[in-house]
């Protein structure tokens, strides 16, 4: 019986190709819009999340302007932060451009950075050759440094830089390691101002002593267990309050993870809103289907009457018409999904973001169109099944 209904429905759709196509156009557009929106939004969210993650999750960024009396965090403050629960290490952002001398050669514009050893723990691939900075370097204010490939190239073409000694601000530093070239996609390293002649990295304790820096204003705090980040933020803020004597606006703690959450929430809110708007197209499409089905019922009144006279039960008439509207809207849904995926692929290429195939969106599109077919086909099918065969037969 179902197979018969299916055959009859397909026959009728085929007999009215143009009308059927125009009818499902609304569904096609609605589903296409939903698929394209969800897919593009998901792709964009993925992109933004990836960028945020490259900025660093599992770490807190502290901006400590300090008070008029105490600018930035002292070395002792930094030590206390390192001791906090769930903090795996810190890395102050200290840098300046300065000249560097090796065997009488002078490079004028070298970026010198003071880092924490945690930086190397966090980025195991940061060191290409030699060794990273280790805690003992910090405790002993060691005069050691790592250089990047640009500086190595400028100064030591043909010479192994490891173990060589440089003069930085008149002090002799031993090169213990070579820094790897940063990932091109790493937004963080792209954002950092680089000296023309490359850069050099030393323990922040050594840096502070060398340049007479009393206070650190920028700092990254690494968290070991990111699930407990919020607790750590509280503990850190309590400590910073204490450091700055509870002075308002003396510091701020930026939690990347928190930002990411906010971002995610905003993106999904946006997606829901857009999908809501796109659903209006689907609703209009559904009304189109209902309209066509009602016309079809009226047109085929005598056919319905005949079928009933020949023994069709109201239920089989209803199934036949419901089937027809479901097939129509499903057809629209499938075409809409295909077009939607195509459009989102084009859009993501155009926006230069990675295309993310979303099975959920496809299921949603197909499900929506199925629901539309059932909901908007119900009333016309019901009308057809309730036709009185006597009246229906008379209307020739």
């Amino acid at each position, binding site marked *: *019986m179902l197979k*018969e209904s299916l055959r009859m429905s397909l*026959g009728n759709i085929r*007999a009215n190709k143009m009308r059927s196509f125009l009818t499902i156009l609304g569904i096609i557009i609605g589903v296409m819009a939903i698929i394209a929106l969800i897919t593009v939004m998901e792709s964009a969210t993925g992109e933004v999340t990836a960028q945020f993650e490259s900025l660093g999750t599992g770490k807190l960024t502290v901006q400590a302007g300090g008070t008029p009396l105490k600018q930035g965090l002292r070395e002792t403050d930094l030590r206390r932060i390192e001791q906090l629960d769930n903090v795996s290490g810190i890395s102050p952002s200290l840098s300046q451009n300065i000249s560097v001398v090796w065997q009488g050669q002078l490079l004028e514009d070298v970026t010198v950075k003071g880092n924490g050893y945690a930086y190397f723990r966090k980025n195991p691939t940061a060191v290409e050759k030699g060794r990273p900075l280790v805690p003992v370097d910090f405790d002993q204010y060691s005069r050691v440094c790592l250089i990047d490939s640009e500086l190595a190239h400028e100064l030591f073409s043909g010479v192994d830089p490891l173990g060589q000694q440089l003069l930085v601000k008149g002090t002799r530093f031993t090169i213990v390691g070579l820094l790897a070239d940063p990932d091109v996609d790493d937004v963080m390293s792209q954002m950092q101002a680089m000296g023309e002649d490359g850069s050099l990295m030393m323990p922040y304790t050594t840096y502070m002593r060398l340049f007479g820096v009393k206070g650190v204003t920028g700092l990254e705090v690494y968290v070991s267990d990111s699930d407990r980040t919020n607790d750590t933020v509280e503990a850190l803020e309590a400590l910073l309050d204490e450091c700055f004597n509870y002075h308002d606006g003396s510091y701020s703690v930026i939690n990347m993870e928190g930002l990411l959450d906010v971002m995610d929430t905003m993106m999904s809110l946006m997606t829901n809103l857009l999908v809501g708007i796109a659903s209006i197209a689907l609703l209009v499409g559904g009304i189109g289907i209902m309209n066509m089905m009602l016309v079809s019922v009226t047109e085929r009144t*005598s*056919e319905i009457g*005949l*079928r*009933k*006279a*020949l*023994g*069709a*039960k*109201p*239920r*089989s008439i209803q199934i036949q018409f419901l089937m027809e509207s479901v097939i129509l809207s499903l057809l629209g849904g499938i075409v809409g999904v295909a077009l939607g995926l195509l459009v989102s692929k084009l859009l993501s290429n155009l926006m230069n973001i990675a295309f993310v195939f979303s099975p959920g969106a496809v299921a949603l599109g197909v499900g929506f169109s199925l629901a539309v077919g059932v909901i908007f086909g119900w009333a016309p099918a019901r009308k057809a099944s309730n036709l009185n*065969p*006597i009246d229906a*037969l008379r209307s*020739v």
Partner: protein
Amino acid sequence: MTSLHETPFFQMTDICKGYPMGDEWQPVLKNVNLTIEKGEFLSVLGPSGSGKSTLMNIIGCLDTPTSGEYILHGRRVDQLDENQLSTLRNREIGFIFQSFQLLKRQDALANVELPLIYAGLSVQKRRQRAEEMLCRVGLSEKLHYMPNQLSGGQQQRVAIARALATNPSILLADEPTGALDQKTGRQVMALFRELNEEGRTIIMITHDVKIAANASRIVRILDGELSEGVVEDA
């Protein structure tokens, strides 16, 4: 002959049918009594407005009477619900309409298969049965013709084949020659008589005395009242 000897084959007792018309009750059928034996060829003769269509609808189980008792093939049908009536129409009644009522997008074979779909037959059985019926009415060469490729007489033959398909107890024809020319009409009537001779019970509704004369028994309906035999001066 029938195994259902205690219960009649076809019996209508005091059938009344009326419709509300404003505040008044408009009676259409008044105490109709009609008994038909299996194998009879009966004409119901009456002018338009006499109630013959209403009677046909009740005989054809398309409608139920307001009061009275209707027994078809040994079964009371006056109080059945819509689904039961559908099944009954499918099994017991073979409709033949004035305007043929063929589905114009389906070929002759598919049209004859239609009642068999609702009878729940398999595709092969349906096809086989439909072919047999089309052969029976002399259209074995036209199985896959569309209705608009057939003449009026041929279309009516397809409709008769369709009516025969489920092997119903009665063939119920409503002005079967109304849309046909005289010659074709006579051919269709010849086919009816043949079918009757094979043992089919036929009830034919018509306003045409000449057509009614083809039947072995004629009842007249006038103003909702049924009377046996032709009144000569009518």
